[in-house]
Structures are given as C-alpha cells and as structure tokens.
C-alpha cells in the first residue's frame, strides 16, 4: 500500500485574546490510496483545524502552522509549496467540503458557475466544456432536472441539494483525496443518510481516498476503514474501524463509545465522561485527558507517546503499557 498523504508533527496555533491556542499539537497520520480515514473528536479537539491545515486554509495571520510540521502529498511537502503550486493542488488533487452547505456556497453566483469555475481554474477547458462538466457532475451527485438547476442560485435549493452541489464542486476535477468536514451535521437525519450513501458510492466509483471529519461515532462506523480519535489537539488513538469499536484502547475512546446514544441501548442515559474539554489555550500537562480519566495515576503526569496497542493500531495511553490497571 502506498501512502498518499503523510502528516507529520502538524502543529497549528492561533493568537487569541486569552493567549496562544495550540489547536492542533503534533498530529501525525497517514492516508493510503483509496482509504477512508475518519477523524473523530468532540468540539475543540482540533479535527477541523487539522483538515484546514492540510490545504493551508487556516486564516492568517491569527492562525499559523508551526515550523517543523510536514504534510507530504504524493512525495511533495504541501507546506513548502509556492502559492501557485498550492493552487494547483487545491480542488484538483485534494478537495474539501464543509459543514454548512448554506454558507459555503456563494449566494450571488449560480450553481453552474460555481462548479464550472473549478474546472476553468485547473484545466484548459472552454467555458462550454466547463458547463458540460458541471452538468455531468450535477447528474452524478443525483440532482434531478440538472439542466435547469445549473442556473439556480444556492438559496433556491434545499440543504441536502446544496450539500450535493458542494460535493459536485469538490469532485469535478476528480481529486485523489476528498476531505469532508462534518458534511452532514447541518442536515436532517434522513438527508444525512442520503448524503452518506452518496459519498460512499462516489468514493467507490471514483477511487479516491477520503478523510471524514465527524463528531458522530455512528457515521464513522458506517463509512471509515480506519478511525483516528482526537482529543486536546492530539491524536489519542488510531485503529482499524472494527477493532476500535470492538475494543477501544484509549479510555477517552471507550468513554465516547459508552456515551454515544444508541437505538438498541438501554432506556436510560448512557454513562458520561465527567468534566469538559479544556480550552486550547490551557491544555493540562501530561496526558491531556488525565483530569477526566477514571484510571489516571501518577504516571499520567507525563504524557505518553502513541504506543503500539495491537496490530496496526496505536494509542496514546500508559494503560497500553500497564493493562492490569484497567481493571477497576
């Protein structure tokens, strides 16, 4: 398996009124050709900032990717590309869709224009050809009456259709990686199911790799090959999906899984994790989860590295070293 994308020691900081926020702090992961990796975490875990950092979409100068970070895509370091080279990657090689289809589309341009301009930016196509491509894409993402929808403005579409248009924009140049940042969070559950089905289907047909960012463990379970769990700006556990859900290695993953509401669960509230995610300006020392962890002991005052926790899986927890402590 060849690695398409390799993120190494990615650190992204923001200047805030309360000091420097280390939103992403030393994150490393790989993405293989054709693979779907889910980045799972709660708000403030750094998952969206990670995604934005890959395409260098962090709003500067408040946000900044720290020196020493590396993002290698097909052998090139994205962080050292010139603006022009970066543009050639964005939208053509790596594309992105966002959480809010309402605000992520330009309200004063037609759907057709917004899809076609991606083609025009990357390929030597005529306007007419670009329009044809846009039309094909609208059909591909399952929009009925595509011909007339080309001339529609975003406000004339429903939330689900807008997200389909976003997907059409992202995929029109056949990127090798699609980054989907909470693509269904703003949608109703029946529409969410449609969009997830569409993404799975398109991924298979177009043979691309995908990074799916979600806070919903259910969505990750249904779509990902591997799952990386983030907490406090760090990846705390990476594992193949089935293994992770069957036997979470990190107490945070375990807690999240237990807290997730289930249709087939008991008819009383699920166990919760005490406390809340600390602000990114003030991470706890040592293991970032230890103030909320039921197993925490002295060793957790120093931060564990990502430890080998089984075949193809790692976890940032000393319990991997001392499994006996897991018993209450």
């Amino acid at each position: 398996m060849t690695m398409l994308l390799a993120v190494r020691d990615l650190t992204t900081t923001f200047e805030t009124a309360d000091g420097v926020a280390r939103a992403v702090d030393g994150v490393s992961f790989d993405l293989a050709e054709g693979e779907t990796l889910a980045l799972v975490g709660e708000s403030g875990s750094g998952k969206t900032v990670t995604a934005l950092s890959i395409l260098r979409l962090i709003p500067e100068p408040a946000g900044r990717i720290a020196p020493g970070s590396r993002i290698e895509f097909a052998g090139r370091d994205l962080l050292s590309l010139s603006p022009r080279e970066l543009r050639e990657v964005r939208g053509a090689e790596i594309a992105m869709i966002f959480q809010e289809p309402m605000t992520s589309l330009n309200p004063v341009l037609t759907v057709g224009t917004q899809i076609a301009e991606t083609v025009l930016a990357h390929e030597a196509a005529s306007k007419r050809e670009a329009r044809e491509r846009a039309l094909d894409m609208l059909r591909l993402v399952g929009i009925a009456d595509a011909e007339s929808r080309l001339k529609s403005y975003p406000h004339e579409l429903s939330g689900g259709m807008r997200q389909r248009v976003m997907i059409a924009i992202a995929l029109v140049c056949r990127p090798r990686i699609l980054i989907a940042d909470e693509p269904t969070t703003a949608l109703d559950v029946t529409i969410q199911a449609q969009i997830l089905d569409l993404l799975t289907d398109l991924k298979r047909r177009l043979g691309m790799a995908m990074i799916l960012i979600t806070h919903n463990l259910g969505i990750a379970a249904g779509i990902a090959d591997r799952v990386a769990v983030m907490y406090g700006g760090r990846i705390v556990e990476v594992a193949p999906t089935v293994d992770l859900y069957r036997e979470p290695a990190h107490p945070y993953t375990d807690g999240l899984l237990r807290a997730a509401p289930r249709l087939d669960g008991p008819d009383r509230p699920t166990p919760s994790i005490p406390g809340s995610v600390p602000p990114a300006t003030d991470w706890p020392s040592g293991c970032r989860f230890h103030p909320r962890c039921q197993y925490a002991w002295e060793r957790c005052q120093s931060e564990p590295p990502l430890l080998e926790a089984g075949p193809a899986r790692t976890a940032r927890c000393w319990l991997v070293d001392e499994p006996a402590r897991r018993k209450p």
Partner: protein
Amino acid sequence: MVRYVMGRLAQGVVVVFVVVTLTFILIHAAPGDPLTSLANEPNVRPEVVEQMRRNLGLDRPLHVQYVRYLGRMLRGDLGVSLTQHRSVAAAIRDAIPNTILLALAALLIDFGIGVSAGAFQGAHPRSRRDRTLTAVTITLYSIPVFWLGMVLLFLFGEQLYWFPVAGVTDPVTYPFRSGLGKVADRLHHLVLPALTLGLAGAGYTARQQRAAMIEAIGQDFVRTARAKGLRERLVVGRHALRNALLPTIALAGLAFPALLSGTVLVETVFSWPGLGRLAADAIGRRDYPIVTGAALVAAVLVVLGNLAADVATRIADPRTKPAS
C-alpha cells in the same frame, strides 16, 4: 420587477405625503408665522401684512389651511416666492438640473474612490497601506465640506487657475462655443464642486466598503473558493467583492440625503445655481416658500434615489427574487 417598482413607488408616495404634512406642522409649530419677520420691519405697514396674511390664507383655521395646502401640493403649486417675482416651482425648475448634475457627478466620484479604497483596505486589513488609507478616510469623513470646497477653490481656482471659480458655465464665452465646447465648459465648471462633494462622501463610503469587504472575506464561501484552487484575484474580486458590493449599493440610497445636504454648502461655495444655493439664499431673505419648496423637492429626490438603490440591489442580489 415592475410590480416591485410600483409597490416601492407607492411607498414613496406615502413618504412624500408624510413629508408634506411634517413641513406643514413645522411651519405652524414654529413661533410666529411666515410673515412675522416682515411684520417686524419698521417700514412695513401692519395693514399690508394683514392683507398678505389673508391672501395667503393664514387667517383660516388650521385644518382648512392643511387641506388647501395639500391640494396645492397635489397640483404641484409650491406657492409664490416672497422675494423673487415668480413661482417657487419656476425657481426650482431652473435650479434642479444643476443640482442633479452635481449630485450624480459627486456620487460617481464618491463611490468610485470610496469603493476602490475600501475594497482594497478590506482585502488587506491591518496592512500599512490600510492604516494610511484609514487615516485619509477618517479625515475626509471629518472635513467640513464647505471648507474643503474653499480650500480646493483657493488652490486650484485662485492660485493655479486650473478650474473656474464659480457658476456652471463661462458667462462670456459660453454662448459662442460649439456643442462639444459647451459640454466641455460645463464639465470644466463641474470638476471642483463635484470633487469637493464626492471626496467628502468617499470617506464614509470607503469605511463602509472596508467593513463589508472584511465581513465578506470572512465568509465560508470565500474559504470554499480558496479550497477550489482559484486565483486570489478571483477569490477576492469575484467571490468577496461581489457580495461586499451589495451593502454598498444599498448604502447609495442612504448616501443620497447626505449628498443633497452637501449640495447646499458646496453650491454656496462655488456659486452653483442649484437647489441648495436657492434655499440657502432664500433663508437669508426669509423667503420661506422657497425654502420649504426646496426641502420638499429634495425629499422627492431622496425617495427616487432610494428607489433606484433598492432596484439596483434587487437586480444585483439573486436572493431578493422569489425562488423559482
């Protein structure tokens, strides 16, 4: 769209009606009546004033006066000037094309400078050039327009002789010029007053445009445009600026009253025979029908200006059209 324009026109008529009513109330709420100052003149006999009061209907009960007033307004009869021997309508008819010309030219300069400066600043917020431009726009926003006019007049008119210092045309040579030459002469006279009025407005426009641009650039769809790999020129020019122009177009309607206020002062400085100067001269002579007439006409101009801005916004913003 036709329906929309008709609807907005109807609203405009309501506004004008309220303006007419308000001016009536103002005239009658002020201490004394329009002839008080005349009556105070030592060489005017009281009988004459009484006779004028009767002629003007000022001795009638208020509601009768109001109905008659409304009726006159409806017929376009704005009364007779107390100092010029002609109707207010005739005086305004002569003045208004000059004011419209001046206002439109100033609007062009105002938005031309304001939008480009503001858009540039918004695209590079907190840069050195942004700070410099901010200092300039705050100053422009704070300059008394008549003083700016005096300074420009002094520099470019009286010292450098680049531009004429007064009027709309050259009183000596104009009648002998060719068609194109006449246009050139008018434009030559227009430059300084329009520049004065336009510069004063550009400060405010630039500040608005800067804020709108910063807001637009922070929107999610600009991030989408970047993620697509568009050139920065397209990201800023097509995606951000297009959206940032919408509030500015709407602002043009609001800028109109300020612009007309400015004409009163600028026309006085440059002896520009427009509506504003007419009103300013009339107030010195206590010629109240001219002043109220000019105010009413100015209000109508504002209503029409607002309508134009609304229609422009509607054309520019697809969201205002009903979904198909």
